[in-house]
């Protein structure tokens, strides 16, 4: 069902993409931009910064390591070798999370130096950010293997623009209409910044939500690959 060497083979693909594609450049820009915003914020929010940078970087990493047409077209050939869809999905997810951790750590470290939050708060923020990145990567992986990088583009914009709002906030801002209700559902179900910001504080609901997305997203992605 799961092969360690097959997972490692998929995980290693991320390194080549980081160096040889524009992924590295985009991640550096993302880290620099978010660190700058974090350093200028009135109140330091390392947990929010870690969650946002981790999630956005994870979606970018999935788009560059699994979502391109060529990547998806190469999957059937890989499956003629002794591997499994689950190994494939787990390896790509692991690679995306590993890559996403780099800009996240860079951004939180830069803000930590500028605004000097406690090392413990930084550690908790990075742990939460890693879980948020994991959930976003799993969600993005399932989306790109269903519909290509359009799914990753949607998720990236959603995380960057909308997901800081909670469903309660949306109801307060727009109490009527089908679109706000759809947004409410989306914010409740999909990985979202408003929910994962509290991962660092140890919110059990947020950890459960992230855990479910990690397992569910990887399983969904593996199922999608097995149907190709």
């Amino acid at each position, binding site marked *: 069902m799961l*092969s360690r*060497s*097959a997972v*490692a*083979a998929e995980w*290693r*693909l991320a390194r*080549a*993409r980081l160096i*040889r*594609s524009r992924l590295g450049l985009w991640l550096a820009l993302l880290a620099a931009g978010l660190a700058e915003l974090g350093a200028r914020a009135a109140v330091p929010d390392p947990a929010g910064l870690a969650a946002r940078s981790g999630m956005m970087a994870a979606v970018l990493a999935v788009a560059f390591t699994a979502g*391109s047409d*060529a*990547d998806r*077209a*190469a999957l*059937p*050939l*890989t*499956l*003629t*070798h*002794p*591997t*499994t869809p689950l190994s494939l999905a787990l390896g790509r997810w692991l690679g995306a999370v590993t890559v996403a951790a780099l800009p996240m750590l860079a951004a939180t470290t830069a803000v930590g130096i500028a605004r000097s939050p406690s090392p413990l708060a930084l550690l908790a923020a990075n742990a939460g950010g890693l879980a948020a990145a994991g959930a976003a990567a799993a969600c993005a992986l399932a989306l790109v293997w269903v519909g290509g990088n359009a799914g990753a583009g949607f998720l990236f914009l959603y995380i960057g623009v909308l997901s800081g709002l909670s469903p309660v906030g949306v109801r307060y801002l727009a109490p009527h209409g089908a679109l706000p209700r759809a947004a409410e559902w989306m914010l409740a179900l999909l990985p979202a910044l408003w929910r994962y910001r509290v991962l660092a504080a140890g919110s059990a609901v947020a950890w459960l939500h992230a855990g479910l997305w990690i397992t569910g997203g990887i399983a969904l992605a593996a199922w999608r690959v097995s149907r190709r």
Partner: protein
Amino acid sequence: MTPALSVEKIVKEYRAGRHAVRALDGVSLALLAGEIVGLVGANGAGKTTLLSVAAGRLAATSGTIGVPGAAPGSAGSRRVVGFAPDGAVFPPTLTVREVLDYYARLHVSGPRRAALVARALEIGGLAEVADRRAAALSRGFSQRLSLAQAAIGARRVLLLDESLSGLDPVARRAVCDRLAALAASGVAILLSSHDLAAVERLAQRVIVLHRGRIVREGPTTALLGERVLELVLDGPADRVPPGFRVTPFGVETDLGQGTVEAALALARAHRLAVRASRVRLRSLEDVVLDALEDGAR
């Protein structure tokens, strides 16, 4: 002798709108160790579908695929059955060597992997492009990389889809030699190709597929053993004798058990102005075209 791969009554149906299209209709075959079998037929005959089903890349609607000692579709069967699809796509940004290393990791771990990659590079004749990006390869090299990844590891069966197309004559001869060497080492090869001259030279057995069915199958020597009498005429034939076919230069007939003299006498009786005649063995192209005509009837 236990077949290295057996295919039993495979049926594969696709949905095309409201209709079901039967791409394979009860195909059965067995591949023996060390044997090269040519799979030929017109476009759309079902060759690629058959190879994809045999490789476990497509699920059959019904029928069974058997690999000794491994469950169908399992990692064990994929360890011994390699597939080289036509127009294969490899993980982007990797070099040829890295692509092979990526697949090799799925077969073995540790220092043995380097030996597998080196052997695959040798089988594909890819040493000169080993450090070039796989995505930038020409079609010929891409086909060779497809073959190399199929042969990686302990593959005992190779399913090759048009692996000889896009190759220049020198590369094609080299790949044919490597395939013959692989077969000599006990690997069973099912080679789908439109290059009938190469199939004629390589394959011990030929299978002709037409509209998802096997319409002719047999040892290459038996299929090609029949003699053909070709007659070059001074002008077009007014009346073609029974059993003769019109060709661009005159007429020809399968001799079967008959003699050249008898066929020439029949031609003279029909007042054909014979300028020259020659006897040749049937080519695989003749066999395939006849089989496809029979299958179409």
